């Protein structure tokens, strides 16, 4: 039983995901219970797996008993176990939020569990084609969830997401084809050896790198490939935007890091500086452009979405610098951003239900009407800017120190400027919340918020996210230790 832990993590939610659909023949209100039970078990399994990795090091599992490199291998090291734990915890939080925020249909919870399956699979797979399959499972579930919004523009946003996302995943698949042509293998560890044997300057290897990384940057939503993301986040139901903004891009960024460290390895980055600089350049453009677009938004949810474009620029920059300290920073920021952004979307959902405010102007003076949600929103926003002791500060600090170590001075300048830009869009929102005269009258707010009440559970989730955004700082040494299981990084 215990040695089958990695595969159980994937099997559990996918089997759980079929149950609500079957149960629809008898009852329509069972989905939430099934999803919660499945994710509770998932959390326990993730905890056990985390403990095994902590004490015994990397765990690998041959699916179906076919040994690597011929069969599909699941590999769990420190970085993947951190992501699996994140998926478990965020899923439970979102389920607590969804209890009264809805949607309530069984089909919704089937897709929810399918998304959890895809995310877990992406985190633990050790095979590049298997990664493609899980990427598409994640994608399919995410498109369906975005479309579950009541208004028809959710379907338009989902279709846009689907077309752009599919092109991205297809480019990744094409890259896998080039890697297969160069080496004849799909196993990540095996690819790392054989790509080195083929030679890093080979056209096949370079094309494979370009296509695989390019495809994943579409899924991560780096500028200028982010166009699907703001519509998808803003038009989906609150529950879905909290879940997707917290996890989907996060796990894609993890997959990018996995490609860099376990498939192409840092020797490739060392041997082909152009690849490293191109990716760093893309990340920097994303940081600046994402922030600039966020500042110019009037809708709060669209502003949060553009903020993700910029924050993922930071994370990718950290992974691309690839010194040990920068990678710790990028991982901390990856995990921290998931908690903060999910929490911000959930808080904005509550503020909308309570007061009807959805725009930056509408947020004026709303802190008095919904103190807990607004307070959590402010804490999360300041954490995102990087005010110590919040986790946003630690992540950015480590990435900047890593960039200084690597002598990447232009990157250091962009990283520091990004903090100011983040402050530019979050500070005006916090200022409006607390120090401006309300622009929305009380009566209209009640009329808007009457049919969608806010439960204690929803408030608890948002407050917990705010507490976690600060408390995660204490977990940084643990993350640092977990990352020692990664393949060797650049030493500069």
């Amino acid at each position, binding site marked *: 039983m215990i040695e089958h832990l990695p595969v159980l993590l994937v099997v559990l939610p996918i089997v759980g995901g079929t149950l609500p659909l079957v149960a629809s023949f008898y009852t329509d209100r069972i989905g939430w219970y099934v999803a919660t039970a499945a994710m509770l078990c998932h959390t326990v399994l993730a905890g056990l797996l985390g403990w095994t990795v902590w004490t015994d090091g990397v765990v690998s599992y041959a699916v179906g008993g076919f040994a690597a490199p011929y069969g599909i291998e699941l590999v769990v090291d420190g970085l993947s176990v951190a992501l699996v734990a994140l998926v478990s915890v965020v899923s439970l939080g979102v389920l607590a939020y969804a209890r009264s925020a809805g949607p309530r249909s069984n089909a919704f919870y089937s897709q929810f569990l399918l998304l959890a399956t895809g995310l877990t699979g992406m985190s633990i797979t050790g095979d590049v*084609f298997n990664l*493609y*399959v899980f990427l*598409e499972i994640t*994608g*399919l579930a995410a*498109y*369906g969830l975005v*479309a579950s919004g009541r208004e*028809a*523009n959710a*379907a*338009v946003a*989902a*279709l846009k997401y*689907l*077309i752009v996302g*599919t*092109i991205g995943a*297809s480019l990744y*698949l*094409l890259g896998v*084809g080039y890697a*297969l*042509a160069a080496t*004849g293998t*799909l196993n990540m560890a095996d690819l790392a050896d054989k790509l080195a044997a083929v030679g890093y300057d080979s056209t096949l290897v370079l094309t494979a790198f370009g296509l695989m990384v390019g495809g994943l940057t579409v899924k991560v939503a780096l500028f200028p490939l982010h166009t699907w993301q703001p519509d998808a986040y803003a038009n989906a139901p609150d529950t879905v935007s909290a879940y997707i903004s917290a996890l989907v891009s996060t796990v894609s960024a993890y997959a990018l890091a996995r490609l860099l460290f376990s498939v192409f390895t840092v020797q490739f980055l060392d041997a082909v500086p152009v690849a490293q600089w191109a990716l760093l350049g893309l990340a920097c453009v994303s940081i600046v452009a994402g922030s600039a677009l966020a500042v110019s938004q009037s809708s709060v949810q669209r502003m949060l979405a553009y903020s993700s474009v910029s924050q993922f620029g930071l994370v990718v920059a950290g992974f691309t610098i690839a010194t040990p300290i920068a990678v710790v920073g990028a991982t901390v920021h990856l995990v921290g951003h998931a908690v903060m952004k999910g929490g911000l979307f959930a808080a904005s959902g509550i503020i909308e239900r309570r007061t009807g405010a959805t725009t930056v102007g509408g947020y004026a003076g709303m802190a008095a009407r919904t103190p807990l949600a607004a307070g959590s929103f402010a804490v999360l926003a300041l954490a995102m800017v990087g005010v110590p002791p919040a986790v946003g500060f630690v992540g950015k600090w480590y990435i900047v120190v890593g960039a200084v170590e690597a002598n990447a001075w232009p990157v250091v300048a962009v990283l520091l400027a990004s903090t100011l830009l983040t402050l530019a869009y979050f500070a005006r929102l916090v200022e409006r919340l607390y120090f401006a005269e309300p622009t929305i009258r009380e009566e209209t707010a009640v009329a808007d918020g009457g049919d969608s009440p806010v439960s204690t559970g929803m408030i608890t989730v948002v407050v917990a996210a705010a507490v976690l955004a600060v408390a995660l700082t204490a977990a940084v040494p643990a993350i640092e230790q977990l990352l020692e299981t990664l393949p060797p990084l650049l030493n500069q």
Partner: protein
Amino acid sequence: MNELLQLDLLASRYNYYAVVLLLGIGLYTVVESPNLVKKVIGMNVFQTGIFLFFITLAYRTGGNPPVVTEGGGPYVSPLPHVLILTAIVVGVSLTAVALALIVRIYSEYGTLDEETLEQLYYD
């Protein structure tokens, strides 16, 4: 002599021309066509280009189908075939979801034209 050999090489790789053509046509249709259904068709053509690329990879001159018989090898590689079977299934599911979304969009807005939709969408 060397040039002739290269010409020969170029002429015998016609599968790859088809791959490039399919990828190009597919991507162009996705970007340029204002009709949502045609965009989905373009997406399918793009993926078909990738499928053809993988199947071409598996080919070797004079290879037998990868079924172990008395005659023996050389065999064509079965691995890309298996991968593409999986990728086709993924492609079909994506098309199904995309078409379901288009049905919903059409029943709501009464149009499949991207530009008309854009105007309605931002009202």
